């Protein structure tokens, strides 16, 4: 009985944190406006080199890349970077370039093996080619509106700001994997980023959009300093903060288009992200399970069976979560159908189960490559011996459930 009430307290704690996350999101999204009530945009508009590393086809790739060629900004260039001219993304980016012949668009193809992080490898040649003192590293699954550059350049008017990144909004879900992905981005990820930034003053850098000065990046070792870590975005942010410069999370929400993911892709990504948080956060990662109230509300059901109390607790938490996620969705204006939010508790339960995986497995598979991840997400080649017993167990489980 005592255990039941302990679990209820844990559930209550999770709900309180969830509530604070919602408040934090509302605070984060309060737009900065001038006296006339218009959003404040950058006055100086420094020239920007937009670097977009590409690998493979993302959902809505053409539309995503096209949106960067439609920026209402006086001076900028877009450099698309690939490792292989046989990459299917090359055809798409050539079409984008042909569609905008008057825009300063470059495509660079160079195979680079400087480090283990394939995204950082893909950035080196584009960085070398970039003309302007300010660079924006932007992922290929991001779609923006024409005011994007003006909005995120604004904080850089302050010389004390070293890096600007963005809040993310998942859109476009047409399959169960992409629906889960967007639900997760729009609640857990968004909520935690805002919570950490607003209450704990810990800006969480997400690499989908990072604007910084070249001289600041070079002062902390440049791209070479993060070539072997998986969480290059986090460590670039940490290094810049270490130079007594501020990292600002812009309230401009960038669209992360996820349309046709299958469940496997969703699971792979969040297991990988969980492993990164475990390697970076250590003990703090253990707290994550407590802020998943749906999962913790299932524990009384598991331990004490179907009783009035356990069903009541779980139902109440699920209802609160569905309503809360729906409200968050409305705050960030996602076009998600209300009925989709009924899947939120199922998604949270799945995330609760996946939470355990990083504790048992150090390997990551990313962009077709398998690595061992060490402290601070440092990557190394996955030796078959080191990973063997864990891989065999996982492969055995996968075979049993016919993965």
């Amino acid at each position, binding site marked *: 009985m005592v255990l039941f009430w302990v679990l209820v307290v844990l559930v209550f704690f999770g709900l309180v944190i969830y509530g604070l996350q919602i408040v934090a999101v509302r605070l984060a999204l309060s737009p900065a406006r001038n006296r006339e009530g218009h959003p404040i945009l950058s006055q100086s508009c420094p020239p920007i080199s937009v670097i977009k590393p590409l690998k*493979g*086809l993302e*959902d*809505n*790739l*053409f*539309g995503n890349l096209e949106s960067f060629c439609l920026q209402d900004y006086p001076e900028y260039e877009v450099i698309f970077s690939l490792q292989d001219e046989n990459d*299917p*993304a090359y*055809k*798409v980016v*050539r*079409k984008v370039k*042909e*569609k905008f012949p008057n825009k300063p668009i470059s495509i660079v193809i160079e195979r680079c093996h400087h480090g283990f992080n394939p995204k950082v490898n893909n950035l080196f040649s584009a960085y070398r080619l970039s003309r302007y003192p300010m660079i924006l590293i932007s992922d290929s699954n991001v779609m923006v509106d024409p005011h994007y550059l003006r909005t995120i350049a604004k904080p850089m008017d302050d010389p004390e700001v070293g890096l600007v990144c963005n809040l993310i909004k998942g859109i476009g879900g*047409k*399959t169960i994997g992409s629906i889960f992905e967007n639900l997760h981005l729009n609640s857990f990820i968004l909520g935690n980023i805002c919570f950490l930034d607003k209450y704990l003053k810990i800006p969480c850098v997400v690499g989908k959009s990072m604007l910084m000065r070249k001289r600041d990046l070079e002062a902390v070792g440049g791209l070479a300093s993060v070539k072997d870590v998986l969480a290059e975005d986090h460590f670039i942010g940490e290094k810049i903060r270490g130079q007594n410069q501020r990292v600002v999370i812009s309230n401009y929400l960038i669209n992360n288009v996820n349309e*046709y993911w299958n469940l496997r892709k969703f699971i792979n990504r969040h297991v990988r992200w969980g492993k990164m948080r475990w390697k970076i956060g250590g003990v703090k990662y253990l707290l994550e399970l407590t802020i998943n109230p749906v999962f913790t509300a299932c524990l009384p059901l598991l331990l004490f069976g179907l009783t009035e109390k356990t069903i009541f607790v779980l139902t109440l938490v699920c209802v609160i979560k569905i309503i809360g996620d729906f409200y968050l969705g409305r705050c960030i204006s996602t076009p998600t159908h209300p009925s989709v939010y009924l899947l939120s508790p199922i998604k949270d339960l799945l995330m609760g189960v996946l939470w355990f995986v990083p504790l048992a497995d150090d390997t990551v598979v990313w962009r077709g490559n398998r690595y061992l991840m060490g402290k601070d997400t440092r990557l190394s080649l996955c030796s078959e011996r080191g990973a063997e017993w864990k891989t065999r167990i996982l492969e055995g489980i996968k075979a049993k459930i016919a993965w």
Partner: protein
Amino acid sequence: MLLCDFHIHTKYSDGSVGLRRTVDLFGQAGFDVIAITDHVVNGDNPFGKLANRFKFSVTGESFETYMSDIAEEAERAWDRYGLLIIPGVEITKNSFSSDKSAHLLLIDIKEFIPASWDYEKIFLEAKKQDALIVACHPHRTSDKTFVDTLFLWNNRDKYARYIDAWEIANRDDVFNVISLKKYPYIAGSDFHKVRHLYSWKSLLNCKKDMESIKQCIRSNWGVAITLFRN
């Protein structure tokens, strides 16, 4: 080289993806040319009657709407993606027996051709309309749920002269008999679901216009196939 898929179904027949979304899917992935080839099913047997009953077929009545919707999408796709869309149909003559079943694509069709006509009449009408005639999945496939369509292969001596190209690869299957016989060939996905985007495709070394494409396929010079993967 133009990246092409000449065998695509939408919700106009038994595809699971609507026309607009299909066009966007291929456009976003960088394709140069696609043909929309929804089924026209013969209504003179139980298969055909069922297909028509459940709207898994383009019919004489719906053909005009089908063509005008494709034309509208073709304009949008050309402006947005530089993607050329060609209207077509898949004449679907189904039977309980594989030996009596045949599917054929008529690409760049202008007027409705019923699937209940005999083969010779279909071929002559398609030639009159200057449509490309492609024999689809002409040999045994790996899909055990699918009734193979062997009629055209089994009667190739009679009908090969009408057929502009044979599908040497369809979705995940490769039909080596086509290369052994040195027949002109293309490949297509037989697209019904989003995942079929990643399958066998055709590559054409020609200009991106209707006549150049048809000429390229007919002459079969500058035609290659590729297994399109992400």
